[in-house]
C-alpha cells in the first residue's frame, strides 16, 4: 500500500485544514502552577539564585574581589579575625580574608551545577532502567530490581568517602557519585508506573499495530511517566545540593580551593562566634535554595495531578 493513491483519494479533504489546537495536559498544568503562589515565589527565588550564579564574575569585577584572592590587610582585623559585612566586603570576609559574598555566588554555581547535572544523570539512567525493568518483566525485572535494592542499601556516605579517597575530589566525580545514589529511587518509581501502564489497552493497541517493544516504551509509556518523573526530579535537585554540601563540608567534595557552600560552612566553624555571618549566610543560601526547589516540586505535583487540588486549597 502506498500513500500516492491515498493522496488522490483525499481530494475532498480541504487543502488548508484549520488546526484546532487543544489545550494539552502540559498547558493545563502550567496554568495551574501559575496559580500556586508558593510555587511561583519559589520559581522566582530559583531564578534569582540562577541569575546571581551566572553573574558571579560580574560581581567579582564590581567588588574587585576574586573568589580565590586573599586580602589579609583589608579583609582581616588587626587581630587577624575576619571582618563583618560592610561597604567593601558586602557580607564580610572569611578566615583567610576572602570576600564571602563573591565566594557564595561562586558556590551557587557549584551547587546548581552539581544539583542539576546529577539529577539529570540520575533521571535519564533511572527512567531507562526503570522502564526496561517494568516493561520487560521476567528475569530482566528480577535482575534490575535486585540491583536497585543493593544500590539503595549501600551506605552512600562511606562509599563516597572511599571513592573520593581513591580517585581524588572533583566536580565530575561528585556528580557521578550523587547520580549513582539517586537513580535507584527514580528507577523504582518509574518501574512501578511502567508496570501499571504495561497492562493498559493502548499498549495492547500499539502491539496489535506491530509496534516494537522499545518504540512502545518510548512513544507510549514514556509520555505517561513525565508527570511523576518531573516531580521526583524536581525533588531530587535539593537532595543532590544537600548531598554536595555534606560531602564538601566533610572535605570530600570539590577541590578545597573551589568555593562551595558546604566547604564555606566547614570553614566557618572556628569563626562563627566572632563573625556569625560566616555561618548564617551560606546556611541561609543552602536553606533557601533547597526550600525553593522543594516547594516548586510540591507545586508541580499539585499542578500535574488535578485531583490533589482539593487537598491543596483546604489548607
Amino acid at each position, binding site marked *: 500500500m502506498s500513500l500516492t493513491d491515498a493522496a488522490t483519494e483525499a481530494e475532498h479533504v480541504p487543502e488548508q485544514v*484549520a488546526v484546532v489546537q487543544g489545550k494539552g495536559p502540559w498547558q493545563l498544568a502550567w496554568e495551574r502552577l501559575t496559580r500556586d503562589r508558593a510555587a511561583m515565589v519559589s520559581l522566582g527565588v530559583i531564578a534569582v539564585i540562577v541569575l546571581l550564579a551566572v553573574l558571579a564574575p560580574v560581581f567579582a569585577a564590581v567588588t574587585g574581589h576574586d573568589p580565590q584572592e586573599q586580602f589579609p590587610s583589608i579583609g582581616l582585623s588587626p587581630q587577624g579575625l575576619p571582618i563583618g559585612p560592610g561597604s567593601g566586603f558586602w557580607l564580610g570576609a572569611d578566615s583567610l580574608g576572602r570576600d564571602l559574598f563573591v565566594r557564595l555566588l561562586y558556590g551557587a554555581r557549584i551547587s546548581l551545577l552539581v544539583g542539576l547535572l546529577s539529577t539529570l544523570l540520575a533521571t535519564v539512567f533511572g527512567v531507562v532502567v526503570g522502564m526496561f525493568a517494568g516493561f520487560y518483566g521476567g528475569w530482566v525485572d528480577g535482575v534490575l530490581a535486585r540491583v536497585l535494592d543493593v544500590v539503595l542499601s549501600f551506605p552512600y556516605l562511606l562509599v563516597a568517602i572511599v571513592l573520593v579517597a581513591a580517585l581524588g575530589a572533583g566536580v565530575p566525580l561528585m556528580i557521578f557519585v550523587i547520580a549513582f545514589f539517586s537513580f535507584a529511587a527514580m528507577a523504582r518509581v518509574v518501574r512501578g508506573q511502567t508496570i501499571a501502564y504495561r497492562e493498559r489497552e493502548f499498549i495492547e493497541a500499539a502491539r496489535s499495530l506491530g*509496534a516494537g517493544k522499545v518504540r512502545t516504551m518510548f512513544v507510549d509509556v514514556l509520555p505517561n511517566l513525565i508527570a511523576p518523573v518531573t516531580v521526583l526530579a524536581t525533588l531530587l535537585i535539593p537532595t543532590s545540593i544537600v548531598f554536595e554540601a555534606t560531602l564538601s563540608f566533610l572535605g570530600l567534595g570539590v577541590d578545597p580551593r573551589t568555593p562551595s557552600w558546604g566547604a564555606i560552612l566547614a570553614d566557618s566553624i572556628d569563626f562563627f562566634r566572632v563573625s556569625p555571618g560566616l555561618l548564617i549566610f551560606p546556611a541561609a543560601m543552602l536553606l533557601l535554595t533547597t526550600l525553593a526547589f522543594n516547594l516548586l516540586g510540591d507545586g508541580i505535583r499539585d499542578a500535574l495531578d488535578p485531583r490533589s487540588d482539593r487537598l491543596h486549597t483546604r489548607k
Partner: protein
Amino acid sequence: MSVLLRVTDVRKYFPIREGLFFRKEVGRVHAVDGVSLEVRAGETLGIVGESGCGKSTLARCITGLYPVTSGSIEFDGAPLGAKGFRRDVQMIFQDPYGSLNPRRRIGSIIADPLVIHRIGTKTERRRRVQELMELVGLNPEHYNRFPAEFSGGQRQRIGIARALALRPRLVVCDEPVSALDVSIQAQVINLLKDLQAELGLTYVFIAHDLSVVRYVSDRVAVMYLGRIVEIAPGEDLYKVPKHPYTNALLSAASVADPDLSARRERIILTGDVPSPISPPAGCRFHTRCPKAMPRCVAEDPRLTPEGEHQAACHFPVQPGEHLGAETPQIQQESTEPTVGRTESGVDDEPDRRGD
C-alpha cells in the same frame, strides 16, 4: 466465498503460578479450549457469549496479541505472523478510554500505524490521517486534540480510524460498542457497517449483546467456557437455535415488544458458569443444561461437521421444544439419577472450583 481466516483447534491456556521464587505452575485457565472456525472474505462473523467465555481471548489470539498454546491460525492461507499480517489484521478495542494514550494527540495516535510501518512522508501521513478522520465522521480540524477532549463515541471513532489506517482486510472488533451509550452504539455500529460496505472489510465482531450481533453479523458463533457450542447464519441461529445454551441465551435477551416478551418462555439456568480452571468433562454445559443426559457427561460433543448450521450437542433442541423449568420433560429429567447436577457426584462438578 473464499476463506480469509481459518482457526483450527486453537487452545489458549493461561498458567496460574504460585510461590515466591520458582513460580510453580499450579493450574491453568482454559480460556480458549479447542476452537475451530472460518471467516469468509467480506462477511461479519459475530461471536457471542457471557463474560469469561473466552471470546476476548480468542480475539487476541486471532490478532496475534496472545501466542496460542496449541492449534493453528491461518490468515489468507499463510500462518499467523507472516509478513504483512500486522497490516492486514487490525483490532478495535472495547474500552474507548483505555485504548487511546491519554498523553498523545489524536493526529499522532491515528498516524501511529503509518509511522510504525514507515508509510508515506510526514505530509502524506497527515493528509491520510485527516482523510481517515473524515471517513469515520470526525472533524479533521481536531487533529491536534487530546483523547480527553472527546466523548466515548468519538473516541471509539478514533480507534476505528486507527484500525483502518493501514487498509486492513480483517478487523477484529472486541466489544466495540459495549462501553457506549445505547444511542451512540447505533451510530458506531452503522459506521462500522458503512465502512464495511465502502472498504470491503471482513469483521470478526465480538459482543455479549445479542441484538447488536444479530444486526451486524452474517453468521454468529456462540461461545461457552472456551468452546464454540453453536455456529450458524444469523437468522437461523436466532430463529431455530439448536443448542440448549443458545436457547437460554436468546431467552434472556430483552425484547422491545412487551406482548412478545410476555409470551416468550424464559429459560433460567441454574448455578454458575463452572470455572475455566477445571472445566467439566464431557459437554461443558452439562452442569447447567436442562436436557443433560449421562452421555453428556461421558462424551464431549463435537460440532456437527456438515451444513451451515452446526451445534455441539448430543441432543439438539427441536423447533417448538420447550426447555422451561415447568415443562414435564424437565421433571422427568430431574428424576434421572445420573444426570450431572451438582449434587450427583459427577466428575468435575463446579464445586471443585476452589481447588
